[in-house]
């Protein structure tokens, strides 16, 4: 985490292969993704990367369930129905699976997005300010859900946030300022995180 303009989003974009670094390398499952061409990168995304966006980025014409299975559809893979059921159950969308995004609340939409990120059991999920567009109560629920996914399935998740409360669910918190990692904390209470942030902005 870090203040606005600290470079946290850029770092995540580079990690996820959305942007290319001017120097250095990013390795996912032993592959240096900065060396891959577009086709190879696309393949890698299908297998190893899941995304959760601040603005959900669901396709409005597809139902919740169709949005969730979209990565598999695109990759041309069979849907593991047991896994899908568990996933839908765990994000609490059992009653709303046939609904379109426009018929869902913000929190529900983000739940769909989380399920979509997890459906292909990726190596790593990147979440970009996943609570940034939600009220605090809904935000907490989403964070809980993410935490639960990490605990239940051992899903590696990288989240970018500037909200100390969000950061407090992470097992490891990296602080960025002006493009550098300036501090690292293990899992910490929100208060500790806030304090760390204040320290950083003071220097």
């Amino acid at each position, binding site marked *: 985490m870090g203040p606005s303009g600290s470079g946290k989003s850029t770092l995540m974009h580079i990690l996820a292969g959305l942007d290319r670094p001017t120097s250095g390398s990013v390795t996912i499952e032993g592959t240096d993704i900065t060396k891959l061409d*577009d086709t190879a990168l696309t393949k890698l*995304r299908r297998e190893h990367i*899941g995304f959760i966006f601040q603005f959900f980025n669901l396709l409005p*014409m597809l139902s919740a369930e169709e949005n969730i299975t*979209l990565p598999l559809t695109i990759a041309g893979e069979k849907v593991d129905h047991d896994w899908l059921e568990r996933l839908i159950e765990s994000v609490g969308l059992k009653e709303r699976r046939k609904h379109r995004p426009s018929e869902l609340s913000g929190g529900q939409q983000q739940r769909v997005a989380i399920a979509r990120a997890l459906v292909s059991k990726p190596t790593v999920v990147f979440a970009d300010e996943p609570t940034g567009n939600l009220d605090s109560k809904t935000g907490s629920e989403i964070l809980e859900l993410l935490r639960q996914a990490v605990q239940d399935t051992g899903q590696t998740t990288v989240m970018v946030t500037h909200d100390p409360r969000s950061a407090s669910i992470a097992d490891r918190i990296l602080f960025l300022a002006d493009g550098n990692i300036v501090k690292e904390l293990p899992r910490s209470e929100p208060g500790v995180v806030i304090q760390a942030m204040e320290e950083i902005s003071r220097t």
Partner: protein
Amino acid sequence: MRSVALRGLLGRKLRTILTAFAIVLGIATISGTFVLTDSITHAFNAIFTSIYRGTDASITGRSAVSVDATQNLPPFDESLLPKVKALPEVQGAIGGVADIANLIGKNGKVISFGGAPHLGFSVDPTQPQFNSLTLVDGKWPGSNEVVIDRSTAHKKDINVGDTIRIEAQGSAEPFRVSGLVRFGSTSLDIGGATLAGFDLATAQRLFHKQGKLDQIRVSKKAAVSEPQLLSAIREVLPPQTQVKSGIEQADTDAGDTNAFTSFLQKFLLSFGFIALFVGAFVIANSLSITITQRTREFATLRTIGASRRQILRSVLLESFVIGALASLAGLLLGLALAKFLFWLFDSLGFTLPTTGLPFKGRTIVVSLVAGILVTMIASLRPARRATRVPPIAAVREGATIPPGRFARYRPVGSAALAVLGFIALIFGLFGASGTGPVLAFMGIGTVLIFVGVALFSAQLIRPIAAVLGLPAERLAGAPGVLARENATRNTQRTGSNAGALMIGLTLVTLVTMLATSIRASFFGAVDKIWIADYAVTAQNNFDLIPTAIDQTLRQAPGVNNVMGVRSGEMRAFGAKHSLSAIQPGGSHIFLLDWTAGSQATFDTLGPRGAFTDKDFAKKHHLSLGSTFRMLVPGGEQPELTIKGIFDPPAGGSPFGAITISASTFDKLYTPAQNQFVFFNVDGGVSKANDAKLDRILDGFPNAKVQDRDEFKKNQASFLGNILNILYVLLALSVIVSLFGIVNTLVLTIFERTRELGMLRAVGMTRWQVRWMIGLESVVTALIGAVIGIALGIVLSVLLIVRVDFLVVSWPVVSLIVFALVAVVAGLVAAIFPAQRAARLNVLQALQYE
């Protein structure tokens, strides 16, 4: 992925429909054309099959000038009929004549329905196996009786027993209507043609074919084969006659009409393809905008694993579906359009026969293939753009699609394309030889120019908008300024729309310039050479008129220098040429610029004299006193002596390649008929003389007396009709391009929702919003009009310069009207989008994401 693409289309119904509409009209024109021409072809086929019912062999005259001619064949002596009848192979034979017979209505005017022919012919009810007419009321005609078609009788309230006047080769005569007939089967509508059937002797007298026949139809005995029959007949055939099997004759006769329908088909199809061509621009632009708006969607798809290829395929699939739906809609709309075209041609003086509206497999295949193909080709560039959407656009607000590798060459490339087009066009006009290559170079050149200029027009948007925006600014203040700025903020989009509209306006300007120049050149020529008082033509301006008219005029007191102008074709110097013939008196009728001979030449041609124009004389090395032979349809080869050579005015002359005396002509061409009759009257053109002439020609309702100005207008009136048809057909393309503007405005309003909300929040009224959108549309339309009119002028001037007998004339009023129409069209196109923009809820608009 496939379902994603299709569901996406469903989710954007309005946008999809607006986009598809660009193709619908083009396809409707194509499908409508096929339906229309198929219907006409069916009708004509039915007509000729009916005519040659029961006919195994057909004997007609044969033109020595053009042996394959099928029309205006010289009639032959009726003594052939008994010889044919006497052949042992022949079971029955019937001789007939046919010509124009004008029915005169109760109001004293020729009964005419939309330029359709007024057919007169002999009927012989004693041999029903040859009769294609069915008597529906009354009985067959005796002498001085007539049967007419039921449809004309109904329309004009004529009943059996009524007396009707009929004008053929003599003055109008009264006939008793003995019966009403129907031609062929009940489902056949022969268009506006009027039918008049007489007994043979009456018909021969009316058509001045006494003792002559136009055709003998023969049926064979059962045991005889068709080749046996034909060879038997050939034994007795005199020169300048020919025999064909019944089927062959029907095919020959249908050949002329097929040539006509095939021309009509190509003519109309070309407008369908022009509309499609314009539609392609509109589709490309609409899709391109839609893709920009879906940047985040594509980026999201990329981040969750979609490859570039999948994006490309999904966009192409969408356009395939749009193309297919639009083609289907167009196909069905084509039926309605065919109906409309029948009506249009009818109301503009070209009534066509019909047998309902047939939907052939070919119509469906061509429409679908053309529609889908054009849509997909138009979507290639937008689809490739979609593949360039970077995945990172999913997380970045306002991310743009990076330009392609070749984007920076676009202005230069498009300009080069236009220049290349001009080179091809100019080479086609001035360098190439042969109709095929000339047309090919001109066509390719024009298409390249259109594509080049349309792509380049993005570069012209800013300067033109700066000028055109000024009045908008004056008129509407802030909304005007914003409208101009909006029109210029994505020059590529505005350019595409203006470019699409440009194509239609270029063609409209081109045909108007050509028509005006043809008209002006013709007017100039008439003004230059005409010194007569009056002229007579047929009511429809082009039918031939009987020589009885010039005879009647010559006998009238106070009428002088009556000069009939006849025309025919002949063969000389190894090619077919047009021949004119005149009566003495021409020196007081026309003033020609003689390079050899003088005005006196008109009146001293004598039996062997001829005059010609400068170019013909030069080409065939003719000078005063040169002699040559010509071959006429009857086979004679008279020798002629050149007695004069004239330099025709720029707009042409009423004379063919060679002009001879009418007295010589009348011996060679039967029956002689006039194209025009010119004459002078004591006292010149006056109201009193108009009335006097009406009395003199009272017996000829089909004769139209006119002074010089009326003559000019009447002769050029067909140009107006053609121009109107062209306007209607080109309007299709213009409408398609207007849909492009509507579509773009609707799409940009989606895009600018937040901005519009902001403008409303800071105090812009709904009406100001409407004005802003409307003026943006007007600015776009005007840019298209300005470029289109300018390009149209350039193209037409090139053409006119190429054609010797044309001089450039400026239809200033028309051009101004086109620009004004563009303004109005722009406003109309903006109504719907402006309404949507004005209705936006300010609060929601500001929250719009």
